[in-house]
């Protein structure tokens, strides 16, 4: 195998890595703060993709520019999910929590099917088409833009999480609800914020991804299992970890794709199990 292929594979892996990281961050945020797995995360992603798609069809908005709108909308959906469902099952057994978000997943996917049918849709009017060639390495411009947006969004979130008072309070809540309360942190508000942020990031991710993928009601499921792997690998509650884990999974997926494409997700899951068993706090967990 020549060097060019290896480099191209690595590059492609890194690009996908950023995308996976962005898709996963919201999941991690919510789990980190509340210890609730949001199974409907994939449906959030799917809805965001549809928002970007319809904005493109109706107003000609480029999907990348639709990100704020879809981020806002899905952030709101996150808030509603928290207020209407999660808050009511917080004291319930963990199983009820799992199934409430699972029910939401089924509901939202069916809703998308009802509203927009099962047809595959593709964003047709995009400003970023064509291919960028650099030292013989080739990347689709759209993918490059998506990766850049993913990095930017992650950076902003990172800043928010580590440099603002609310960000610190979120971290404190993630570490211990009780200790956070003793600091005068309104944990209920932090839960709400984590759902809003979780929704908003996956909402933006969905808009970015809309230009790369076909859009259909069950598209989210494809990503969400990988997102779980990313979150576990990176360690719960760690944004940096999620970023690195996204990169690792992107790379593994691409390298495995060269050698045994049929097994590539199996390799990812095997690694994922290995990590949770031997390093339950994540590869980079503290």
């Amino acid at each position, binding site marked *: 195998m020549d060097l060019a292929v290896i480099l191209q594979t690595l590059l492609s892996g890194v690009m996908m890595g950023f995308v996976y990281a962005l898709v996963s961050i919201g999941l991690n945020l919510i789990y980190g703060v509340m210890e609730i797995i949001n199974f409907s995360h994939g449906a959030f992603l799917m809805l965001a993709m549809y928002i970007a798609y319809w904005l493109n069809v109706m107003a000609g908005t480029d999907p990348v520019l639709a990100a704020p709108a879809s981020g806002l909308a899905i952030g709101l959906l996150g808030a509603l999910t928290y207020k209407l469902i999660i808050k009511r099952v917080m004291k319930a057994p963990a199983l009820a929590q799992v199934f409430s978000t699972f029910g939401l997943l089924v509901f939202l996917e069916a809703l998308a099917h009802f509203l927009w049918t099962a047809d595959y849709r593709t964003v047709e009017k995009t400003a970023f088409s064509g291919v960028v060639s650099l030292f013989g390495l080739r990347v689709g411009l759209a993918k490059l833009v998506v990766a850049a947006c993913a990095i930017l969004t992650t950076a902003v979130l990172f800043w928010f999480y580590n440099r603002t008072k609310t960000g*610190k309070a979120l971290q404190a809540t993630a570490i*211990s609800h009780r*200790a956070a*309360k003793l600091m*005068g*942190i309104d*944990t209920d508000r932090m839960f709400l914020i984590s759902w809003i942020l979780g929704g908003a990031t996956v909402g933006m991710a969905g808009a970015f991804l809309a230009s790369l993928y076909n859009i259909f009601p069950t598209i989210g499921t494809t990503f969400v299992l990988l997102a779980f792997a990313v979150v576990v690998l990176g360690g719960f509650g760690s944004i940096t970890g999620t970023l690195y884990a996204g990169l690792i999974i992107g790379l593994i997926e691409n390298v495995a794709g060269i050698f045994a494409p049929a097994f590539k997700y199996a390799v990812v899951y095997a690694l994922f199990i290995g990590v949770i068993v031997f390093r339950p706090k994540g590869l980079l967990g*503290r």
Partner: protein
Amino acid sequence: MLSIIDLRVNYGKVRAIQGASLRVEAGQLVSIVGSNGAGKSTILQAISGLVPVSGGEIWFDGERLDRLPAHEIVRRGIAHVPEGRALFGRLTVLENLELGAYARQYTRREFDRVLEEVCTMFPILKKRARQKAGTLSGGEQQMLAIARGLMLRPRLLMLDEPSLGLMPSRVSQIFETLSQIKRRDLTIVLVEQNVQESLELADYAYVLQTGRVVLEGPGDVLLQQDMIRQAYLGM
């Protein structure tokens, strides 16, 4: 300043506190002593809103606390340094202190001044500012927990077993610190297993047994009581 009237707390069927009344006057250091499971920690948790109150009332400066959520109570100026310290181990010492001031809307300058003030009491924390809280030694962690509570500039400081699990030399250091804090006219509620020291320090003290106040009085008076001496001091 703080008055607790006929407080009752249940955990499921277990009645942890079954009608306890306590008073804390401004500027006092009040000790609560009692054996394990007597309900000492539960009283502090009830005050700071961590456990729901099943009956009775808690008043603080003319305001009823027992209906408020925990974060509102902290905003009233009540700092609770819980048993086991509840530090944010993944965060740095400085970040822990910042979070201690979360409920206060300090300006940058005010924050720096409060931080300076607290750090003069615990110089070691300044040295460790960038270190993760989880990597500190037990004594240092306790210092940090107290310092974090002080960052609130509390009107009432509640300490739960500050000396628990520390080496004897560290224990005396903690009590040294406590008396230092006391000198600054802060109102303090102290829950301690080291009955001797805590009573020596206390202006007033309560003895708890199975969720009830069985004895109360000024610290030095209680220290003379036979029951205390037999039950807790082994004399």
